[in-house]
Structure formats: structure tokens, C-alpha cells
């Protein structure tokens, strides 16, 4: 029992990254008393990301200063239910965020809307290839809303971010320079597309020559003088090369700090408490109503915070863990297939090719944003016919440069020595003269890939860690091998002096060591009924209707794209439903 009980609030927001800050902002003028609890520290552009201190690769890029501290809390990982899960002791594969702004501080800024088929994955695949095309253990399902329903919220999030890009489809009219596969949008991006790099130009030329459709990557990186709908002014990006793993010192990369918080902090009915780690959501004796949350403050005191509405807006993995620790919703059982909390965990399937050129080609990798590059969508989702290929999903193929950080982003040919004078020569000869072609692929959900609580390992507060049971499945390995051939075709057309291919083989197992993607998804998925999902389309818990669960934990499966576009849009969609429907008539917004 908590020793200290605080005054009740109307809404408590757990986790203060993108979704928590958007929820607070959208409800700030409703008169509700809103409290945000953030387990990490207070952070703002000044002083925390100030130049030149933030150009310190070792502190931020390698020692991971802005991320969750693994010594306090991590997850355990195993490949299959029969294995013993081991702690993810040293972060590599994915990097959960922490602190004000969360992962929204140190993301790359790649900003996508899903394709129409992405939101109707099960029905599209079934219609096109027949029901038997979906493997029996693949638990793919449709999102509970349509693209058209969500379009205004994608639009709004792009405007909040000051996003840059070339539209490819405005109201059904295809526009040269954009992505011809994108779903119809009502408006262009609020700021012009980012400048391209030389590597992107070479890739675009080769891809076009092969009949593909390359375009400049859309990004939450502001490229023109711009103020967003909240009245917050962003800065014009100067391509400093320190987006990925860093806070933006220039107010250009969209984060809660650069787009929401200056406006939100004006509201007197909003309060933020940092270093307040929520350990569970409290419910009443019926278990159908949340009464608030319990958190541990900086002094280690356990504090009860009563609230009428609880919003879980922590990182994807932690949201699922909080539901399990709070016993909200029925935990998923992989043996029976029953229960939903922890179900449909998914990740991303990436590959890459390193291209090495002679000194006649200079790529200046340090001049970049976290999202500079050229993409093509020709083999993503349902943009191509899978009929004869035998897999569901697809991947983007791209030439992106996210910075030229010399410790982490150094590329040398596989034949080069790892140390000694030979290594020195190799980094001298290759740093400016190499580029990459990469792929980012979708990952489908499976009965055998899920999240639950670990029986052995605990966090700094003595609570069970989340346990991840995940491995690559044949469908994704087939997909990535298909993509490898296509990517290699483009690379050959670019005619580098040498290239090294780095795609998963058909026998590959998930490896936590190399960084791959922080786009972990699922575990608290959205759906159209309580049997197939944890939350409804408004991200409202089916079991405890005054609990809302935001973020990538709600994705039924993972798409090839980076998730932040849908994460932001669905948070805005949920906030609108709370404001216009729930507050007047608290209770389930969708009848089960």
C-alpha cells in the first residue's frame, strides 16, 4: 500500500514522449486537470541538447545517454517457448527511450503514412491470393479503421511536425517527384523536401533506370521557416549530422520539445512530474475501473495518484508490461491462443549492402539529417504481386545517410583488417567514399512470437522484467531474400568498385547484438472486438474503459515503414474521441 496519496486529477498520463504530450496538448483547453508522470529526467532543447556539446558521439551515440538505462530495467529475450530467456544486458538491437520527449527526442525523423493495404492487411492478402496464402501460425489482422478515416490525423501530425517531403498523390492526382504508391492525401507536406545527398542521387538514377520509382524521403525535419498549428516555431535544418541518437539543438527535427511542449507548458491545468516511475495501474474491486496509478518518485517513495482517466503512453514494450503488471486484460497464452495482452509482438526485417567507390566519388556522410535519403516503394506491402513469391509483406529499398559518426558509422570492406596499420589505411581510404543501400521490411505476427512477464529477472524496483519470445520466421526470411536480389540489382547498376551484402540468410536467428531498429510493435493490439485485441480503434481498453493505451504496442503487425506517423496520428485520433465523445459520456466508445 502506498504511504503517500496525492490529490486526484482528471487524467494521468504515464510516459511523456510523443503520444503523452500530444494527448495532453489536445485536451489542455478542455479544463481537465492533467498530470503527466515521466520516469526519466526533465529535458529541453536548452540546455540539454545545446551545441556544441551535443555533437559528442561517444556520450550520446555510443554510451546512449538519452536512452533507458539498462542497469535499471531491460527485457529478457528468447527465440522460442522451450528456451530460457536471457536478459538483454547491453543494448544493441533496439533502444527504448526515457526522459521527457522519450524516443521522440532521439529518433531519426523518418515520417510515413501507412499504405491503404497496410491497414487492411488480412483482408487484402486473402482477397488477392486466397485464404490459404496466409500461413496457419501467422496472426495477421486488419487495423480497426480505414485510411480515409485516419487521413485528417496523418495530416495534422505532419503539420505539427513541420514535416518535409514531396507529395505523390493529392486527392487522387499523382504528382511527379513524390511516392506514386502513397494513398491520397488532402494536402502537401508543410515544408519542402530535404536536400538530397550524392549517394541518394546515384541510387535514384540507377533505380529509375531499372523502371522503379525513387523519391526523397519524407521527414519530420523542418526545411523552411515555419510555425505549427500550436503556434510553435521550428528552425530550418542545417544538416548537422547529429539526429539519430541525439537531441536536436536547432529546433528542426520534430520532437515534443520542438513542437508541443512550449505551447503545452502555458496551460495552468497541466502538470509534469519527472523521475516518477509508474509501477502499476490501480483498479477498483470490480477490476473494470481504474482508480489511478502508483508510482515511485526520485526519493524511492511509493506514491498513489488517483485519476479518472489513465493514459498509458510509455514505450511500446513498457506499455505491455504495465498492463501485465496491473492485470488489465487477459494475458496471451501461446499454447491455447487465448488471451490478448502480449499477443502479436513484431519487429522489423532489415538488410543492407555497403558500396565502396574509389576516391573520385565523395559522399560527405557527415552532412546529413537522421532521415536524408531516397526511397522506393515498388516492393513494399501490396505494391507488387506476391502470388508466385510465397510470402506476405514487403520492404522499402533506400539509400539513406543518417550521419557520418566515425566510431559507429565507419564502413570498411569485409576484406580490410580490423586493426593495425591495415585498418588505418582502410578507414582513410573508405570513410568519404562509401555509401549504403538498405531495406526496411515488414514483420508479420505469429502465434509463437509474444510478450509476457519473466519468471526470474527483475528490475531495480523488484518487479518482473518483460520477456520477449521472438525469432525470424520463414515468411520474413523469404521476403528479405527476395528484396536482396532486387537491391543487388540496383547496386550493380550503380557500379561500385566493390560491395558487401548484409542480408539475413534462410537459417538466421534474431540477434540482439547489432543495432537493427527500435520499431518494436504489438503486445497491446487494436482491433474490432475484445477477442482479437486489447484496445478498440480509439485505443481504449476493452476491459477497463477509462484506460487508454497509445503507441506502437497497438499495431496488429509491423509494416515496412518507421512507425511514428501512425503512432502520432492514432494518438491524435484517440485524443479527439476522448474530447468529443468520452468526456460527455464516459464508458466504452465501441460496444463489444
Amino acid at each position, binding site marked *: 500500500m502506498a504511504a503517500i496519496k496525492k490529490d486526484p486529477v482528471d487524467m494521468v498520463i504515464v510516459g511523456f514522449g510523443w503520444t503523452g504530450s500530444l494527448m495532453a496538448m489536445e485536451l489542455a483547453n478542455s479544463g481537465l486537470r492533467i498530470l503527466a508522470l515521466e520516469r526519466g529526467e526533465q529535458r529541453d532543447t536548452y540546455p540539454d541538447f545545446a551545441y556544441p556539446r551535443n555533437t559528442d558521439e561517444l556520450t550520446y551515440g555510443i554510451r546512449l545517454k538519452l536512452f533507458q538505462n539498462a542497469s535499471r530495467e531491460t527485457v529478457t529475450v528468447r527465440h522460442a517457448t522451450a528456451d530460457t530467456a536471457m536478459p538483454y544486458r547491453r543494448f544493441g538491437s533496439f533502444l527504448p527511450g526515457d526522459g521527457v520527449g522519450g524516443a521522440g527526442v532521439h529518433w531519426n525523423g523518418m515520417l510515413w503514412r501507412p499504405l491503404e493495404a497496410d491497414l487492411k492487411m488480412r483482408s487484402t492478402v486473402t482477397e488477392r491470393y486466397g485464404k490459404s496464402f496466409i500461413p496457419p501460425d501467422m496472426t495477421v489482422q486488419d487495423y480497426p479503421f480505414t485510411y480515409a478515416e485516419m487521413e485528417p490525423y496523418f495530416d495534422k501530425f505532419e503539420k505539427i511536425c513541420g514535416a518535409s517531403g514531396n507529395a505523390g498523390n493529392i486527392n487522387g492526382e499523382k504528382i511527379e517527384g513524390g511516392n506514386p504508391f502513397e494513398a491520397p492525401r488532402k494536402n502537401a507536406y508543410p515544408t519542402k523536401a530535404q536536400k538530397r545527398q550524392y549517394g541518394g542521387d546515384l541510387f535514384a538514377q540507377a533505380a529509375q533506370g531499372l523502371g522503379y520509382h525513387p523519391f526523397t524521403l519524407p521527414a519530420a525535419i523542418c526545411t523552411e521557416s515555419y510555425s505549427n498549428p500550436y503556434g510553435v516555431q521550428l528552425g530550418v535544418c542545417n544538416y548537422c549530422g547529429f539526429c539519430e541518437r541525439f537531441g536536436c539543438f536547432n529546433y528542426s527535427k520534430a520532437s515534443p520539445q520542438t513542437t508541443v511542449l512550449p505551447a503545452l507548458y502555458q496551460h495552468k491545468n497541466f502538470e509534469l512530474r519527472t523521475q516518477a516511475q509508474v509501477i502499476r495501474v490501480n483498479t477498483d474491486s470490480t477490476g473494470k475501473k481504474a482508480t489511478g496509478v502508483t508510482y515511485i518518485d526520485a526519493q524511492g517513495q511509493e506514491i498513489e495518484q488517483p485519476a479518472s482517466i489513465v493514459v498509458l503512453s510509455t514505450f511500446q514494450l513498457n506499455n505491455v508490461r504495465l498492463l501485465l503488471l496491473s492485470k488489465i486484460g487477459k494475458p496471451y497464452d501461446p499454447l491455447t491462443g487465448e488471451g490478448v495482452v502480449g499477443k502479436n509482438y513484431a519487429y522489423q526485417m532489415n538488410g543492407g549492402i555497403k558500396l565502396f567507390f574509389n576516391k573520385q566519388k565523395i559522399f560527405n556522410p557527415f552532412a546529413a539529417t537522421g532521415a536524408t535519403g531516397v526511397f522506393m516503394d515498388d516492393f513494399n506491402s501490396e505494391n507488387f504481386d506476391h502470388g508466385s513469391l510465397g510470402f506476405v509483406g514487403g520492404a522499402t529499398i533506400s539509400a539513406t545517410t543518417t550521419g557520418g559518426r566515425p566510431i559507429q558509422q565507419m564502413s570498411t570492406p569485409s576484406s580490410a583488417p580490423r*586493426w593495425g596499420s591495415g585498418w588505418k589505411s582502410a578507414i582513410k581510404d573508405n570513410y568519404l567514399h562509401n555509401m549504403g543501400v538498405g531495406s526496411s521490411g515488414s514483420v508479420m505476427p505469429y502465434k509463437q512470437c509474444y510478450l509476457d512477464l519473466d519468471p526470474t529477472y527483475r528490475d531495480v524496483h523488484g518487479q518482473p522484467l518483460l520477456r520477449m519470445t521472438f525469432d525470424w520466421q520463414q515468411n520474413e526470411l523469404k521476403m528479405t531474400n527476395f528484396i536482396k536480389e532486387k537491391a543487388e540489382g540496383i547496386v550493380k547498376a550503380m557500379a561500385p568498385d566493390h560491395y558487401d551484402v548484409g542480408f539475413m540468410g534462410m537459417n538466421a536467428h534474431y540477434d540482439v547484438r547489432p543495432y537493427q531498429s527500435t520499431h518494436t510493435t504489438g503486445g497491446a493490439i487494436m482491433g474490432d472486438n475484445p477477442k482479437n485485441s486489447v484496445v478498440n480503434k480509439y485505443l481504449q481498453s476493452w476491459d477497463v474503459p477509462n484506460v487508454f493505451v497509445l503507441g506502437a504496442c497497438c499495431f496488429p503487425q509491423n509494416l515496412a515503414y518507421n512507425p511514428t506517423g501512425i503512432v502520432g496520428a492514432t494518438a491524435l485520433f484517440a485524443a479527439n474521441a476522448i474530447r468529443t465523445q468520452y468526456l460527455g459520456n464516459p464508458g466504452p466508445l465501441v460496444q463489444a
Partner: protein
Amino acid sequence: MEKKIETQVPSRRRFLQKTLSLIPLAAAGGSSIVALSAPAAESQGVSDHYVPTYFNNDEWRFILAACDRLIPSDSNGPGAVSEGVPVFIDKQMELPYGFGHLWYMHPPFASAIPELGYQSSLVPRETYRQGIKAINQHCQQQFQQPFASLGHEQQDAILHDLDAGKLTFDNVPGKLLFEQLLENTKEGYLADPLHGGNQTLASWKMIGFPGARADYQDQMNLPNQPYPLGPVSISGKRSV
């Protein structure tokens, strides 16, 4: 600004000699100091008088010798030692990183397939302490001298064996020590000088990384063109 000392003795040799001269003779075991043969480059950034905080005399001699083999001074410029990388590694040992406070280090520890990642109970400080002791014992048995006193060829052979997993010890896997050492040596060589290595920005100059300049609007309009300015550090230090 650092005062440039006019002398015929290459500064890297000076650095090694002066650093080692701080070690009592008894601890140095009467053997000759680290063999020096690679051409040394000028370095004005490194303190000749650095006294290690974490490493003891034997360990420090190992760190100096091993860093010198992993990233030697050569025709491409200064190597790890004159750039201060041993100082960087020593400083890292006193930070939360060295104590393993950035990693989940709660028991139980068990071995697992490599794909499940780091599962050693050793934190960087202990990896070095136990690993260096084991290597020096091995060298004493094989060559009757510690690692730092061996010739370059023997040192390289030992490092290659560690790298390949051919040489391992009871308390610490040889590969674990090697990866720790190589990772930290490269970090120190390529990181901003504020952490103790890369004191003359030689590595950044060599590869063409402009450091903390962080403003490339104009360069984005010049695809395939060289960037005209040399590197600058966070503190405003520029390369010579």
C-alpha cells in the same frame, strides 16, 4: 594553448618513456621498456605526465603496448598512444560505464547462444584486470616476459590469437578481453578529444570528418565535392 616543446626526441617515445618512468623499477621487473620501432609523429596534445587512475603499473604497460599495436603510428599519422587513447581508456574505467552501470548486471548469469548477447558477469574494469593478468601470466610462461616487453611480432601474434578465439583463460575469455580492448581503443581514437583520446584530431583529419562543425546547408548543394574545412572539436580545438 599547449606549449610545443622543441626536441629531437619524437613525442610518442617521450610519452611512453616518461609515463613508464613513473613506474617504480621493481614493478617494471627490470625488463626493458616497451620496444619502439614504428615511426613516431608529432603530438602536442598528450600529457607526458599522466598517472593512471584505475590501472596499476603492469596493467598500464599492457594498455600502452596493446593500444600501440592495435592502432600504430605509421605513414598515415599518429597512432593510439600518442593520441592519448590509453588515457581515454583509463578515464572510462572511472565512469559508470567502467563499473558496468550502463548494463543490466543482475544475476543469475548463465551462458547462452551468441545471438542473445552479452552474458558475462564481468564489467569492463574486471575484464581488463583479470584479462591483463591472464595474458601476462601466459606470456611469462611462454616467453619469460610480460606482454609489454615482447617484440611487435610476438605481440601481434598474441593479439591475433585473442581475436580469433584461439587463446583463452579460466577467468576471462580471451575474445571478450580483445573485443573490450579493440572497442575502447577505436572509441578513444575516433571520439572527441574531451574524452582523453584523439588529442590532435589526427584521426578525423586523416579520414575527412569535420568534427563538431555541424552546419552543412551549403555543402548539401555541392554533391561529390570535397568539404573545404578541417576538423574542429567541441572545445574549439582545430587540427594542425
